[in-house]
């Protein structure tokens, strides 16, 4: 076996052994994520100010183009690049192992970055405004679909590489026994990613072929219902990846902020497994008012299969707070029911971000999601602003905020830079949390009044006047959330490039569970 022992440093705080080539990969994926977050954030403020009737900022074509750009850059590029960083971290540092096939990993990153740039080129230069759902016969340019495919292939390869890395860690004796819970959560995310990305291929390869003229339009016109099913098998499962990654990060944050230990690992792991079981068929909740599917089919798919995932989330909903509470009580914060919470480290952005994301995701995202995915109630929600209201609670107030919170730890611990401003970091989760909460509430209540999503000017039909106040709340919230995002992006980018370096302590690190001589010789002979 090649000698990797000199490629490690020890993290002083956590004791993790960080493989330096993996650290570079984490760096490049995390920085890419934040760059796309910036693009998405600029789009966010522009479209939000357009939807606020009193401001109505953008002309119509730019509005639709920028929603497309916002959806892709936020939901896909920011989130997925960050998750790739999480996968690499989970499969290397947490296992105290080397990350194998470094060149392949760089190749994957290049695929993804080319894909993301192509999509942005298609949107901004070629003027693609089909929304991230791209329902045919709305047609993007070939480069748009090609970009999505390249990006997805890169992410798929990263998932495979994650499995490979865990395998190598075992085989070469870096790690023995059960996977740590964080890595287990990321493993679940990677497994879901494989299914998701294959569905992505089923969706976007035919659309690409249609865009270059190989598949005739009449086929696409007849397959709109089928496209929707495959698109959401991809698009909704992708949210299960985000969910698994976010929950894994909550556990990680519990550990990093107050030293929380999962109370019962068995329970937490079963909850993660439920996510895998429930991924694919629950996606039908996007098609609840579609023609062509029977109520029975919709009900079967949105009841027991979706509720399996809900049970998973409810388990985490007790085991994460329980872990935190136990750790806090051990420190002597035992007065009353909630001292463990009220005396938490509220000036640590990792902690405040975690708690706020937990509350927004669970109480608002979860509850609105359950309502909407009820077959008989969906008719009151479908495609009105309540839908973005719901997913800004799940994927923004929940996932994106959890990612930001953990970034405040990743930057010093993994990327070895001090945060350039602790004061700003301290207040950032509160600002962003407040802003996005207003966005969520404004959208939800405007949706309740029937205001459609993705709509440039709701004054035209002349019936939505009552919603103006709600849309104003959304608009003001958007400004606050935008400021919150800018603070985060500023801190992240400036710290990574100009923050004070935290010196690393290089240490020789060998597999602690060495394989027997003869066996390892045979391995080097065959590989």
């Amino acid at each position, binding site marked *: 076996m090649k000698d990797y022992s000199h490629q490690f440093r020890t993290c002083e705080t956590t004791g993790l052994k960080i493989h330096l080539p993996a650290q570079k990969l984490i760096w490049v994926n995390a920085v890419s994520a934040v760059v796309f977050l910036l693009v998405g954030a600029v789009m966010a403020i522009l479209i939000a100010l357009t939807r606020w009737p009193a401001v109505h900022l953008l002309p119509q*074509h730019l509005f*639709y183009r920028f929603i497309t750009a916002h959806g892709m850059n936020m939901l896909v590029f920011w989130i997925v690049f960050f998750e790739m960083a999480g996968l690499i971290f989970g499969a290397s540092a947490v296992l105290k192992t080397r990350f194998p096939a470094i060149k392949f990993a760089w190749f994957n990153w290049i695929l993804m970055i080319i894909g993301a740039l192509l999509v942005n080129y298609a949107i901004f230069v070629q003027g693609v405004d089909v*929304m991230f*759902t791209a*329902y045919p*016969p*709305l047609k993007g340019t070939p480069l748009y679909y090609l970009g999505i495919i390249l990006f997805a292939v890169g992410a798929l390869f990263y998932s495979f590489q994650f499995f490979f890395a865990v395998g190598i860690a075992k085989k070469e004796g870096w*790690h*023995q026994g*059960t996977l*740590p*819970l964080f890595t287990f959560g990321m493993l679940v995310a990677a497994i879901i990613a494989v299914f998701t990305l294959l569905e992505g291929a089923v969706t976007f390869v035919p659309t690409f072929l249609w865009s270059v003229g190989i598949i005739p339009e009449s086929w696409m*016109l*007849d397959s*709109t*219902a089928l496209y929707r099913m495959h698109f959401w098998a991809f698009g909704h499962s992708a949210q299960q990846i985000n969910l698994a990654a976010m929950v*894994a990060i909550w*556990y990680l944050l519990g550990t990093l902020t107050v030293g*929380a*230990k999962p*109370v*019962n*690992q068995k*329970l937490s*792991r079963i909850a993660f497994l439920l996510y895998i079981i429930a991924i694919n068929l629950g996606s039908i909740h996007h*098609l609840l*008012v579609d*023609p*062509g599917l029977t*109520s*029975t089919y919709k*009900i079967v798919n949105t*009841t*027991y299969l979706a*509720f399996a995932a*809900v*049970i998973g989330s*409810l*388990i985490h909903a*007790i*085991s994460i707070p329980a872990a935190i509470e136990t750790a806090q009580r051990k420190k002597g914060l035992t007065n009353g029911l909630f001292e463990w919470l009220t005396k938490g480290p509220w000036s640590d952005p990792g902690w405040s971000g975690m708690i706020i994301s937990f509350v927004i995701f669970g109480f608002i995202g979860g509850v609105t999601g*359950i309502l909407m995915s*009820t*077959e*008989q109630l969906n*008719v*009151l929600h*479908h*495609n*009105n602003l309540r839908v973005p209201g719901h997913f800004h609670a799940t994927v923004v107030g929940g996932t994106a905020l959890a990612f930001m919170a953990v970034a405040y730890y990743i930057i010093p611990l993994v990327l070895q830079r001090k945060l350039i401003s602790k004061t700003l970091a301290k207040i950032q989760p509160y600002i962003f949390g407040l802003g996005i909460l207003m966005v969520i509430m404004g959208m939800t209540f405007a949706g309740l*009044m*029937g205001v*459609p*999503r*993705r709509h*440039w*000017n709701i004054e*035209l*039909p002349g*019936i939505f006047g009552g919603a103006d106040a709600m849309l104003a709340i959304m608009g003001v919230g958007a400004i606050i959330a935008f400021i919150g995002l800018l603070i985060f992006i500023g801190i992240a980018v400036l710290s990574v490039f100009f923050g004070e370096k935290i010196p690393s302590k290089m240490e020789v690190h060998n597999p602690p569970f060495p394989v027997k001589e003869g066996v390892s010789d045979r391995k080097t002979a065959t590989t």
Partner: protein
Amino acid sequence: MSIETPKNWWKPLNKEERIWLYIVGVWAVILTIMMPYGHTRDHNISNETWKTTTKAYTAVSKAFIKKYKIGEDERGVPIVDARNIPEGKRGADIFLIATRAWQFKPHFILKKDKKYRIHMSSDFYEHGFSLQPMNLNYQILPNRDFVVTMTPKQSGKFMIVCNEYCGPGHHNMFTTLEVKE
């Protein structure tokens, strides 16, 4: 710790965890029963869809509008008076089309308390049927004729607004539905 390798992790659940699991289980059962229950109470949305083609549906819609048209509204949308269409056993068939030029056709006049079968389809893009202020929302697809049965119980002016993004003219897509005694 979530980043440590656990030694012995297959442990029995403690009391709080078990209580919580019971609560979650009961709640999941209630939710799971709720939808089939709504199913038996006829709370579902329509299950009736016919295969069609954009061409055939356009022709049907044209003929329908021609037959019952009584004029045009201020936006140039043909007004169809559907008050006297024979109701039959299952309801009076009326046809809504979402066109490629981002228009809903026609502007309907319906009769209060009369049962209608609203057919909806598109001649190209996907669209949304959003009846306001009831806030009832359906998906419209090309090549599919989706039939929703409704009996207006209230007279007045209602709006059908497109709420599925269908291209640059999306926000221009709405039409009126009047219900008269």
